[in-house]
C-alpha cells in the first residue's frame, strides 16, 4: 500500500505565497527522506498530511485515507515530531508522554505503560521522572520522539529530528530512527535539509524545492551508479592519475582529488597498489560523502559548485576554488 500519495497537490496561502506547486509523489512504506531547503514546503506538506491544512487544489491520500475528510482517523495512526521546542519544562518526561498517549486515545493504565516503553526505546529510562526543563537538547529530542511513538503509529513524521544535536547526538538519533523503521516496523518520513544525513538511513528520498518535486527515487537506484572513491595524495597526483588510468580505472580529477568509481572491493586494492608502487604519500582514501547531492546539483538551484565531472578537468595543479 502506498503510504502517502499526492496528485498535483497545490497550496497557496492567503498572502499569495505558494508553498506547494503541483506536487505529485507516491511514498512507499519504509524510511523515506523528505529533503529540501528551508521554505521548500516541507512543513506545509506535513500539515496537509496531518489534515491540519486543506490543499488549495489537488488530492492527497495518507494510509489510504483522505486527511481533508478523515483527519481524525489519519491523525490517530500517525505520530508527529515537530521541529521546534514543544515540551513543557515543568513536567517530567513520563508524565508528559503519558498525557500525550491519553490524547491519542489510549486508556489510562495502558498510556502509562506505553509511555515508559516508548521512553525506554528512545534511551530514556532512569531520567524519565526528572523535569524536562533540566534535560539536554539530545534528551529533549528523544522525548519529542517518544511522544510521537507512544501510541504505536503506522507512520511517523519527523521534522528535522537532528536539529541542534552535536555529531554524536546526530548519529544516535539517526540510529534510533533507523531502528524504528527496520526493527519496529513503523514507516518513517524524515524531513531534513541535510541530504547527507538522510541518505544514511533512508530507503528512498523525495526532494522538493520551492514546493515542486525535484526528484523521488529509491536510494539504491540513485547511488548505485555513483559510488565514488576519493583519493588524495600530497604530491604526484598526475602520475597516480595516469597509473590508475593505465589500470583501466575511469579516473577523474577534481582539484587536488582523484575520483574513482567504486566497482567492487578490488578497486581499493588497485588504488593502494598504485600508490605503494609510486611511493606517494597518501592522505586520504574514502568513499565520497553527499553522493546523492550531486544528483540534485543540476537543478535550477545548483549549489555554487559545478558538478564534479566538469570541474578539475582543466584545472591547474592544486587549483583551489
Amino acid at each position, binding site marked *: 500500500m502506498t503510504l502517502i500519495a499526492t496528485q498535483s497537490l497545490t497550496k497557496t496561502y492567503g498572502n499569495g505565497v505558494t508553498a506547494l506547486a503541483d506536487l505529485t509523489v507516491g511514498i512507499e512504506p519504509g524510511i523515506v527522506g523528505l529533503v529540501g531547503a528551508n521554505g521548500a514546503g516541507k512543513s506545509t506538506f506535513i*500539515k496537509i498530511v*496531518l489534515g*491540519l*491544512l486543506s490543499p488549495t487544489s489537488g488530492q492527497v491520500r495518507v494510509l489510504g485515507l483522505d486527511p481533508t475528510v478523515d483527519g*481524525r*482517523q489519519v*491523525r*490517530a495512526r*500517525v*505520530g*508527529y515530531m*515537530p521541529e*521546534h*521546542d*514543544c*515540551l*513543557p*519544562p*515543568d*513536567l517530567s518526561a513520563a*508524565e508528559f508522554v503519558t*498525557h*500525550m498517549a*491519553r*490524547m*491519542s*486515545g*489510549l*486508556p*489510562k493504565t*495502558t498510556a502509562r505503560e*506505553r509511555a515508559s*516503553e516508548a521512553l525506554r*526505546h528512545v534511551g530514556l529510562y532512569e531520567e524519565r521522572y526528572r*523535569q524536562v526543563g533540566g534535560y539536554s537538547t539530545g534528551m529533549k529530542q528523544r522525548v519529542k520522539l517518544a*511522544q510521537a511513538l507512544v*501510541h*504505536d503509529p503506522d507512520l511517523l513524521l519527523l521534522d528535522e529530528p537532528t536539529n541542534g544535536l552535536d555529531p554524536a547526538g546526530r548519529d544516535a538519533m539517526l540510529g534510533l530512527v533507523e531502528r524504528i523503521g527496520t*526493527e*519496529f*516496523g513503523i514507516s518513517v518520513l524524515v524531513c531534513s535539509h541535510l541530504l547527507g544525513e538522510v541518505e544514511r538511513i533512508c530507503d528512498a528520498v523525495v526532494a522538493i524545492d520551492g514546493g515542486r518535486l525535484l526528484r523521488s527515487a529509491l536510494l539504491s537506484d540513485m547511488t548505485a551508479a555513483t559510488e565514488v572513491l576519493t583519493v588524495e595524495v600530497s604530491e604526484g597526483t598526475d602520475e597516480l592519475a595516469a597509473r590508475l588510468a593505465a589500470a583501466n580505472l575511469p579516473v577523474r580529477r577534481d582539484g587536488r582529488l582523484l575520483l574513482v568509481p567504486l566497482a567492487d572491493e578490488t578497486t581499493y586494492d588497485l588504488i593502494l597498489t598504485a600508490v605503494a608502487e609510486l611511493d606517494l604519500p597518501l592522505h586520504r582514501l574514502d568513499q565520497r560523502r553527499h553522493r546523492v547531492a550531486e544528483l540534485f546539483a543540476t537543478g535550477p538551484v545548483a549549489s555554487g559548485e559545478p558538478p564534479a565531472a566538469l570541474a578539475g578537468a582543466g584545472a591547474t595543479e592544486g587549483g583551489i576554488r
Partner: protein
Amino acid sequence: MSQPTGVIHDIGYQRYTGPRLGRRPIVGALYVHGLRAAFGLGRSAKAKVFPWLIVGVVAVVAAVLTALRARTGQALVGYAEFTEMLSMLIIFFCAVVAPELVSRDLHNGVLPLYFARPLRRQDYALARLAALVSATFLLLAGPMTVMFVGAAFSVDRLGAVWDELGDYLVGLGYAAVHAVVFGVLALLVASLLRRRAVAAGAIVGSFLLTTPVVGVLMVLPYERATQLAGLASPVTLVGGLGDWAFEPGGEAEIGGYGPLYALTTLGFVVAGVLLLLARYRKVASK
C-alpha cells in the same frame, strides 16, 4: 521483571493492538487534566501557591460567615451576595488559572502536538473552557456547601432546611453563571497571549477596563442610564442579571431591564465562545 537471577530481557518493541478510545474519552481526559492543572495538581509546588491561596481566602470567608450565622442565628450574607462579594477574587482566580491552561500550551509550543492527534481544535478549546468554568464553580460551590451545611444544622425546624436548600441551589446557579461569564472572558484573553504573567495582567485589565464607564453612567442624572449602566462591564452585567433572576426584590437598581441583562449575558457568552473557537481554528493552521 523481578526475576531473582537479575537477567534483563529486552522484549523489543511491541505493537499496540489494544483499544483506541474515541473522541469523548479523549476530550474527557483533557478536561480532567485541565481541572487538575487549575488547582496545580500534578504540577510543581509553585503552581499550587496561587490557586490554593485564593481557595484559602474564600474558605476563610465562608467559615467566618458560617460561624457568625451559628452564633447569631441569622444570615448576614446570602448565597448570591457571597458570590458577588467575592467577584474580585474570582477574577484573580481566573487570571491565575486561565493562563495556566492555555497560555502555557502556547508558550511551550505544545499545541501542535495536540492538534497532530485525533483531538479537534474546537475540542481542545471547549475542554479547556469547561475545565476553567468548573474550577471557578468549585471555588465558589465548595465554600457555599460549607455554609449550607452549617446553616442546616443551626436552623430549628425541618421546614427551614428546605427553604435553606432552595436558597443554596439558587446560589449555586448564580455561582455557575459567574463561572461561565468570567471563564469565557478570561480564557479568550489568555488564548491570545503566550506569556502567563502578561496574560494574567490582561485578564484583570479586561474585567476592569470598562468599570469607569459604569461609574460615569451611574452618576448621570437619568434613571435609565443608571439602570443600564451595569451592561457596560462583565462584573456589573452578571450582577444585574443576578438582581433580576437570583435575588428576590433586588430589581431596584436595574428597573425593568432584567431580561435585557440576561440576553446581554447570553450574547456575551456566545460571542466569547465563538471567538475562542475562531482563535483556535487560526492557531492550528499556523
